[in-house]
């Protein structure tokens, strides 16, 4: 008879047993408020009307509707600016006020994940500096980038768990004349779009029912600190995040699934910039071709900077190898803006995209040649010197 050395095995496992202090935080908001009560940090409160949504494990999360501080995204603003512009435009159309700050840096997490030329203290200080800047204005932060959103949640966990990190960041912030501030919820713009999808639907002017959509959920939105992402039992049975899909379905698009939905896009952070053979291969072989074979979409909708860039830009070179590519890619913010009547070039800036988006516009009933001529007429105002810049009045005029 064999005697199992239970006690010895348990002792060996002790090293890997998770104590309470190492379990995933069930309610980071409550932890923050507790630390605030101890004078360790300042929590910026939601102080305007908010929509309640459910996160992955059921915790209620509130999404403030107005008075928002837009934490912009490097990749969106730099390479696909219609992404940012569409977010602003939809918010303006729904009548909610916001600040588009200059007192904002990148979260610098693209670099953190790509080159590792940073450290946890620097990343936390950059995050808190931005949050403190938002707090100074009284506007509540809304994070445009999925990586910023995921990384800031990581930073929040690290600050909650590690008093020595809090002390270090407080000391640095003191040198900048700022307190250690964190918002009571870290909110991604796609959560705002999800929470307000009924209001967006109410302003819809273009029919999208003939458009087949596949959704790529962004890794850093729902895999990093997973418990904070929005889920809904009515969307994929609560087994995938509800954002993007919930909005596309609300607008009446034909949303179809595909087997590699969990796969990343292939962005890779460093790969997209200096090792793109991997990025191109993954994006086309594991995402675009699978979507085409299984769902035949007109457009891929996603909700992060890197995903739009990767899935859009990787298709061109693959054509040389006869791969089955050729699907438009855009953010759900651009898609929603188009559905609400936004101009495809003045607002959605689709001329910065690579994969052919024109068939999608045609299915929406948009004459893209006429639209381009209208945009060109606006550009002529700039060329002639009649105007230095276009503004929101030009867009809506």
């Amino acid at each position, binding site marked *: 008879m064999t005697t199992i050395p239970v006690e010895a095995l348990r002792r060996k496992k002790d090293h890997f047993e998770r104590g309470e202090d*190492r379990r995933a935080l069930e309610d980071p908001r409550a932890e923050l408020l507790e630390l605030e009560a101890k004078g360790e940090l300042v929590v910026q409160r939601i102080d305007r009307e908010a929509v309640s949504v459910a996160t992955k494990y059921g915790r209620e999360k509130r999404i403030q509707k107005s008075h928002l501080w837009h934490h912009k995204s490097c990749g969106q*603003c*730099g390479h696909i600016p219609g992404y940012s512009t569409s977010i602003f435009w939809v918010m303006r159309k729904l009548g909610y006020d916001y600040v588009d700050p200059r007192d*904002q840096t990148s979260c610098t997490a693209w670099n953190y*994940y790509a080159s590792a030329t940073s450290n946890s203290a620097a990343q936390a200080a950059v995050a808190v500096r931005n949050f403190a800047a938002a707090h100074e204005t009284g506007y509540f932060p809304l994070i445009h980038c999925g990586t910023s959103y995921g990384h800031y949640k990581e930073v929040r966990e690290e600050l909650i*768990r590690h008093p*020595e990190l809090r002390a270090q960041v407080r000391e640095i912030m003191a040198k900048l004349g700022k307190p250690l501030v964190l918002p009571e919820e870290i909110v991604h713009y796609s959560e705002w779009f999800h929470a307000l999808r009924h209001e967006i639907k109410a302003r819809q002017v273009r029919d999208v029912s003939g458009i087949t959509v596949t959704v790529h959920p962004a890794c850093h939105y729902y895999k990093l600190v997973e418990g904070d992402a929005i889920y809904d039992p009515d969307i994929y049975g609560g087994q995938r995040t509800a954002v993007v899909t919930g909005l596309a379905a609300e607008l009446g698009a034909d949303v179809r699934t595909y087997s590699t939905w969990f796969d990343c896009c292939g962005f890779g952070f460093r790969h997209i910039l200096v090792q793109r053979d991997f990025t191109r291969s993954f994006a086309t072989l594991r995402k675009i071709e699978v979507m085409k074979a299984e769902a035949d979409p007109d457009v891929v909708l996603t909700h992060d900077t890197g995903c739009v860039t990767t899935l859009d830009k990787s298709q061109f070179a693959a054509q040389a190898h006869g791969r089955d590519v050729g699907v438009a890619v855009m953010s759900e913010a651009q898609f929603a803006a188009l559905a609400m009547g936004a101009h495809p070039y003045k607002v959605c800036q689709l001329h910065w995209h690579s994969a052919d988006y024109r068939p999608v516009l045609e299915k929406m009933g948009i004459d893209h040649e006429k639209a381009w001529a209208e945009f060109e007429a606006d550009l002529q105002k700039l060329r002639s010197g009649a105007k230095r810049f276009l503004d929101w009045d030009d867009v809506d005029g």
Partner: protein
Amino acid sequence: MTMTDAHYKAPQVAGYADVPLEEKQRLFAEVKNDIRFADYLYGCYECGICVAACPSARFYDFSPRRIAQAAAREDVELFYQQMQEDIWECSQCFSCLRCPRGNNPGGIITIMREVAVGNGLASAREALKAYSRIIYKIMSTGTQVSPDMLQPDAFPDWGPETSDVSAHLDLWRRALPPETLHTTSTGWAVADKTLIELYLIWHHTGALDMIADVDPGLHAILAEVMEERLEEEGIEL
């Protein structure tokens, strides 16, 4: 060569120098002592779910499971080999967080990369060779990628639209309705005061000095740019 290290590559084959066991232990200790490490590693069932979810595992000889296991077993020989050969293949997508044990192999890799950079390891020098421009951009301007990076010779595989953007860059940027987006050399207009605060963060957290070994030229340029700007503001470090 003993039986236990027979499967490791000889330095002349591996392309990087072997180092004494003590040095490998020191590098491992630096990773293990990072405050994030205990949050990233609990143990490993060897189930391979992380590998199944990993994009890099499909295209490279790379395994997040082996990363977690080497760290858990404190196998410093394998750990050192991974520092030199594997860590830069990771996509940092964090699909490996599907781990039923709650491990974060991608996070362990983040720390391993930082230690590789801070200690000037050959793999870090190689990985960052083409990356200096990006580090310069993020550390000096506070935004990572800028519109003027969209040059056809830099992104020939992104199609003819990149040439269109490049040819019309200034005009198309001025056509963007948000006032903050009229820039071409940064993603958006960052205030001077904000940049000063960012430079102070890089200095006070040691982030700037992390690249001193791995890219001394870039470090010298960045240090000069920042010090000059801080001096103009009357700030002494």
